[in-house]
Each structure stands twice: as C-alpha cells, then as structure tokens.
C-alpha cells in the first residue's frame, strides 16, 4: 500500500489518496457548479464532521473539565468558517469551545456563523496571549482553522500569523482542519518549522501535504463526495462505516 509523500506522477490511478491544491479546488467547483451544492451546505457538513473527529480523538467521557475546553483559532477564509461551524457543534457535543477569530471576513456566511456561535454563548477572545504557557494552562486542546490549501500566509493578517507562531510551541494537543496552517499544501514544506498537529482532519479528501503528517491521528471528514466525483478524481478513500462522517486513515 503506497504511502508516498509528495507528488508522484507515476502513481496508478487506483492508488491515489491525495488531492493536489488544484484538484481540491476543481472538486469543490464541481460540487458547487455541477451538483449545485451550496457553499454553506458544504461548510456545515465539514464543520460538523470536524467536530465529530475531535470527539473521536478526544472522547468526552475520558476528559476532565479542563480538558474539555477547546480553543478554536479561525482565519478569515473558508477554513475559518469551517472552524466556526466546528466550534458550534463542539458546544452541542458538550465541549467548552472558545474562539479566537481576529481577522473577520465580511461575507454573509462568516457573519451568520459568528452570530450563531455568539448566541450560543461561545466566547470570542479579543486577543491571544503570546505566552504559550497561558494557552497550555487554560485549554485542553486547540483546533487550528486558520488556513486551508491555497491560502497565502500574508492573506490572513498579523494576529493570525502571530497566533500560529505561538501555536508552534504548544504542548497541549493541536487539531488542524484540512491542512496544518502554514504548510505548503502541495509539498508540506515548512512542516519542519511549522505547526506540528497531533491530529489532522482532512476535509473531503487528504491534500498532498498530508503525506508529511506525522502526528497521532489522521482522519478524513465530510462525507458528501458522490461516488462519481471520487471516480473522476481517481480518489480512493478509506471506507466510512455505517452512518459515520469521519474515517480514520
């Protein structure tokens, strides 16, 4: 079974387990344009499934009160929107999320997702301490929803960049949504200096850089890709069982 990291042009179609950044964008376009999915639909399904993945990696009954506190760091793009949905479902699942969302997108989707979290009494931090020990002491785990594939570091703004610098030093568990923020989505470069998450939750399908992931758990989450689309992109994903929206890789 191939577990090659990085691009492999000679990879046989039936063994493809990763999407390039361009392919991920093309797959999303197909769902939005051909299948007429709404972005809000897909973001909701991804955010919900991400929260389910967190519950699988860190089941609630095994956690102390402090360990149930989750810091969700959201960037201004789609990855951040998924983080907002994830935080809301974590709240429903009886975790205690707090959100750091310093650079706010003006689009309606982000605004509504923010309102939903606020109305559910999920606190929004106005600043994130640069002293990582304060984060280690206040929270049980951190969810990184800062950058998805294709987002340039300069697009996320100063506060997010500073947050990522702090998160690199984290000693409590870190869960990254889709890709570890700051990694090159293709090559995984910066995986040495960048974030080193314990858990990677790949949304819909793993991205190329996931080959460089060396943490504890790798999940694929978001069970909405039709079989025809999987075939078209020659993707082979682990089977979801039953009604699960998360599968372990």
């Amino acid at each position, binding site marked *: 079974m191939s577990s090659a990291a990085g691009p492999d042009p000679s990879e046989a179609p039936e063994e493809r387990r990763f999407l390039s950044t361009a392919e991920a964008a093309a797959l999303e376009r197909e769902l939005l344009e*051909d*299948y*007429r*999915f*709404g972005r*809000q*639909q897909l973001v*909701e*399904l991804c955010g*919900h499934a991400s929260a389910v993945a967190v519950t699988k990696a860190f089941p609630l009954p095994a956690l102390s009160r402090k360990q149930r506190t989750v810091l969700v760091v959201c960037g201004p793009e789609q990855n951040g929107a998924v983080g907002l949905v994830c935080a809301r479902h974590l709240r*429903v699942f009886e975790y205690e999320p707090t959100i750091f969302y310093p650079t706010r997108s003006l689009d309606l989707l982000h*605004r*509504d997702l923010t*309102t*939903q979290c606020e*109305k*559910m009494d999920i606190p929004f931090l106005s600043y994130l301490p640069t002293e990582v020990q304060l984060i280690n002491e206040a929270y049980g785990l951190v969810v990184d929803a800062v950058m998805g594939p294709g987002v340039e570091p300069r697009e996320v703004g100063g506060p997010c960049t500073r947050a990522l610098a702090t998160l690199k030093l984290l000693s409590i568990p870190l869960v990254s949504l889709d890709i570890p923020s700051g990694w090159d989505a293709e090559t995984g470069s910066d995986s040495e200096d960048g974030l080193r998450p314990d858990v990677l939750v790949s949304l819909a399908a793993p991205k190329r850089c996931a080959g460089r992931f060396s943490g504890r758990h790798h999940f694929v989450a978001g*069970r*909405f890709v*039709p*079989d*025809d689309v999987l075939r078209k992109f020659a993707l082979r994903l682990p089977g*979801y069982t*039953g*009604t699960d929206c998360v599968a372990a890789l």
Partner: protein
Amino acid sequence: MSGLRALLGLGLLVAGSRLQRITTQISACRSGPTWWGPQRLNSGVRWNSEVMASTAVKYLSQEEAQAVDQELFNEYQFSVDQLMELAGLSCATAIAKAYPPTSMSRSPPTVLVICGPGNNGGDGLVCARHLKLFGYQPTIYYPKRPNKPLFTALVTQCQKMDIPFLGEMPSEPMVIDELYELVVDAIFGFSFKGDVREPFHSILRVLKGLTVPIASIDIPSGAGTQKVGWEWV
C-alpha cells in the same frame, strides 16, 4: 423505544411503536411565513403514554416549535439551507440506525422517499442523498416541486447522484411492498393544516395499506387532520 436527540441538538426525536411497524419521527424546525397556522397537533396521534413517561423527552406544541424556529432564524441567523441539511442528515442517520443495511434483505436496501410540496419535502431530499451515501438505494417521488433555488438545487444534487425520481406513484400498496423495504414519509410537516389535496390524499391512502415500515419526518403526514380520517399513517 428510546428517544434520540437530533444532531442539531435542538430538534427532538420522538419514537413510538405500533404493532410490527416502527414509525420514527424526527422533529426538525424551520420557519417562513407560510409555514405556520393555528392548527394544533392534536391527540389524533396515538402515543404510548408509557414511552412518553420513560423517555423524559419534551414534546413541542406547534406554538413552541414555531417559537424555536423564529429564534433560530431571527436571533441565531441560521439559514433554511443549513438547518435543512442538518435535519436531513440526522433523519438519514436515525433511519440508518433503526434499519441498518445489514438488517435488510436487499443489498443495497431499497427505500422509497416521498417528498411533499414544502420544507418537509426538502428534508426528504437531503435525507435521500445521505441515505445513498450510507449505502441505501433510494428512489424519490416528488410530485409537487416549489420553484425555488433551494429545492431545485437539492433535486439536482440527488439527480447527479443517480437517485431516480419516479414519474408516478405506484397505486397499489403491494407494489411498493415488493419493490421497497422501507418508505420515508417526507410529505407534510406539522405546519400542515386544512385539506389534504391531491395527489397527496391518494398517496396517503396507499401508504396506509403498506406492510413495509414507514419512517415519518417531523410528523406522520396527515396526523391530526380530521379529513384524512385515520389516526396516523
């Protein structure tokens, strides 16, 4: 029969049983000015009072559900698309838990999803799509389709996933019993009031004659409506 909480955490799943047929109800709330009327869900629906007492689940009155919906839409800024997706997903999950594919005769198990003209029908479309992903083989009957982007998009999603849409409803219960192992009733929600118009009156009559199980979304369609003449489907 234990109560199940919908994934949204706000809807309430009500389960009751009648003879061999298990009817699973999933309460999922949406609003819109045309949805709500004064019709109260009356006790024409036959509940097992012991089930009610043991599950400690609160059953919403129509007014309460309306208030919940208003709050979700106006205060929480949820969209219909969002809640419909979560409702349909949780319905499919509940159905798959009640009737796992391994317990069904066919592989994949065949399911007929009947979608009504409103939001309950939309829930059914989402449910059908997730049932397909869960390994069922759904077929949809959707005779009255609102001409709104939300619904046309949901139809497209199902069509692109090769979920067939029937041109007409089988007129004999036995035909449905032979072709499908389960029927999902996504015809009317509990905003429904007044006369059951065709083609739904005939559809409900056919469903009443089924021996295969029916899973009703929101409420058993037609429940509490005097004109229909039976207690529940």
